[in-house]
């Protein structure tokens, strides 16, 4: 009974736990994002950082589906594409301001989520993976073949974002727009994850049958995860169009879906800080490796393996244990003495 918990690995772990549970963690992340341009604000740096932010948003969205709910989705780029195309078409063909396309994109994403999720969520994971992969390809190929989507060349000349007459289309404006939107998206996803719905997602991930037995309509809850993921992806699509001003089918290939998935897994499935970190890693690393020229993707591949071997649960795994607040613990102790009759089901 004399285990010394104060050994240094244990203390380090405890410290890490505390950092992980720190509610100010998000604020620190936000501050870093807000201040980054003061360190380097070249167009290049801004564009890389903006891309990283978009990637964060996508990863956080996919995390709802894969990380929380355990549904393997290999076609997430489809929702991203739907967002980008719907807003791009409305903005270029019909002259809508980008902001005005937001509600339409949300509706489109929800519809797409239901269309693909509805009939196929009964499938178990690997079959679902193929269906989602197929869905991703169908969306991309359709965009490639239709005229309204501009065929293989896609849509170009997408305007930047204007908010209350302020032009946010410059690299700096866009970056800060993305910081705000993505911060909200991350916060939103994290909050959903900690709610009744988020717990239900995790119950399904752990054991679908047991979840059903607890009265959780697994079908509906899974659909909710799908729709959530779709909305996040769709919104990221709008920002993507605003950033690049041009979108085309090659931006929505399977490889993209795979990279987003990698961001989620590499960061730590179900862990918001992890997924954010993973997304930054996956999107920034190839840029850092530009210098390695020919070795770029070779090194990238090797690094992925190495990182994963050393952090098999991801860079920042989801927090497994829950620390009871002092109040909870005290109350639990009190309750020990009280009698069970008081428990009302």
């Amino acid at each position: 009974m004399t285990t010394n918990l104060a050994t240094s690995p244990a203390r380090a772990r405890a410290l890490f736990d505390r950092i992980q549970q720190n509610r100010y963690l998000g604020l620190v992340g936000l501050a870093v994002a807000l201040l980054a341009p003061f360190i380097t604000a070249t167009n290049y740096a801004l564009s890389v950082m903006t891309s990283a932010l978009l990637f964060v948003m996508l990863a956080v969205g996919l995390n709802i589906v894969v990380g929380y709910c355990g549904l393997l989705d290999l076609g997430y780029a489809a929702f991203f594409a739907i967002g980008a195309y719907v807003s791009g078409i409305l903005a270029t063909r019909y002259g809508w301001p980008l902001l005005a396309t937001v509600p339409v994109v949300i509706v489109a994403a929800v519809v797409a989520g239901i269309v693909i999720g509805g009939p196929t969520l009964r499938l178990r994971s690997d079959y679902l993976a193929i269906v989602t992969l197929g869905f991703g390809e169908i969306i991309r190929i359709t965009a490639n073949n239709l005229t309204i989507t501009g065929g293989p060349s896609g849509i170009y000349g997408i305007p930047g974002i204007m908010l209350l007459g302020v032009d946010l289309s410059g690299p700096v404006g866009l970056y800060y727009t993305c910081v705000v939107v993505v911060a909200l998206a991350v916060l939103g996803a994290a909050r959903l994850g900690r709610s009744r719905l988020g717990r239900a997602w995790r119950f399904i991930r752990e054991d679908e049958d047991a979840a059903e037995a607890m009265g959780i309509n697994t079908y509906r809850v899974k659909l909710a995860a799908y729709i959530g993921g779709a909305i996040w992806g769709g919104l990221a699509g709008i920002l993507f169009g605003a950033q690049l001003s041009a979108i085309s089918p090659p931006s929505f290939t399977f490889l993209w879906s795979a990279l987003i998935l990698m961001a989620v897994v590499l960061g730590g499935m179900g862990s918001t800080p992890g997924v954010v970190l993973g997304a930054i890693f996956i999107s920034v690393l190839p840029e850092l490796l530009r210098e390695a020229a020919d070795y770029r993707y070779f090194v990238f591949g090797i690094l992925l393996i190495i990182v994963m071997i050393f952090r098999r649960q991801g860079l920042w795994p989801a927090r497994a244990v829950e620390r009871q607040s002092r109040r909870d613990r005290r109350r639990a102790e009190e309750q020990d003495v009280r009698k069970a009759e008081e428990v009302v089901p």
Partner: protein
Amino acid sequence: MSTRESVPLLRVQDLHLDFGGVKAVDGLTFQVYEDDVLSLVGPNGAGKTSAFNCITGFYKPTGGSITLHGTDITRLRPSAIAARGMSRTFQNLRLFGELTVLDNVRAGMHLRLRQNALDALLHTPRFRRTEREATDEANRWLDFVGLRGDRGGLARNLPYGEQRRVEIARALACGPKVLLLDEPAAGLNYGEKGELLDLLQRISGLGIAIVLIEHDMDLVMQVSRRVVVLNFGREIADGTPDEVRRDSAVIEAYLGRDDDEEDEEMMSHE
């Protein structure tokens, strides 16, 4: 009391379940009344768990009907049945192993938490309140089942017996009218069985009807009001524990003759 007794809470009528050639359940009929503690016993493979699976919607029975509170639940999905006041545990533990013990119990409360996605996104007062209540109640249920282990830790790290308790707490948190327990005493030692007996009596005391599958006859005899004995998917006896214990068909198929045991005692090693 007597009027209640006449209207069964759960009625299983001529239940059938076939797997290819195997008749897992073959015309099972029984009723469960409020305050009831009914035990389902029988040899291995008699169809007890299969019957549970039909009743809770995990298997679609090939025939027969199941009613709860007078409404037909035969074809409902498991979650809908749970929502109507029936919850269960599993023979092979089905906890959410990678989640905390508290979260496991919160799963049971899913149906009763009044909170939507918007509350969660905005952290409305209602969200905070419901979350607090959920934690409180989960803790109360864990107290109720007498969990000793770490509630904030992963469920899979608990010893087996403790996991059994968590599973019962989780089922209780659903707020059931009928609780189905599939071999809750499996893997418990004598002392722990005593605690389980006490727990079952307290559950019963809350006005929850219990249907129990169990091979531990001591426990069955002590806790049950009635015992239904199955063999090959069919009922071979139904009565009070004492009646069933003396039933020759039950002894033949299930319990074994006592002298068997004595036989063994004598053979012990020198």
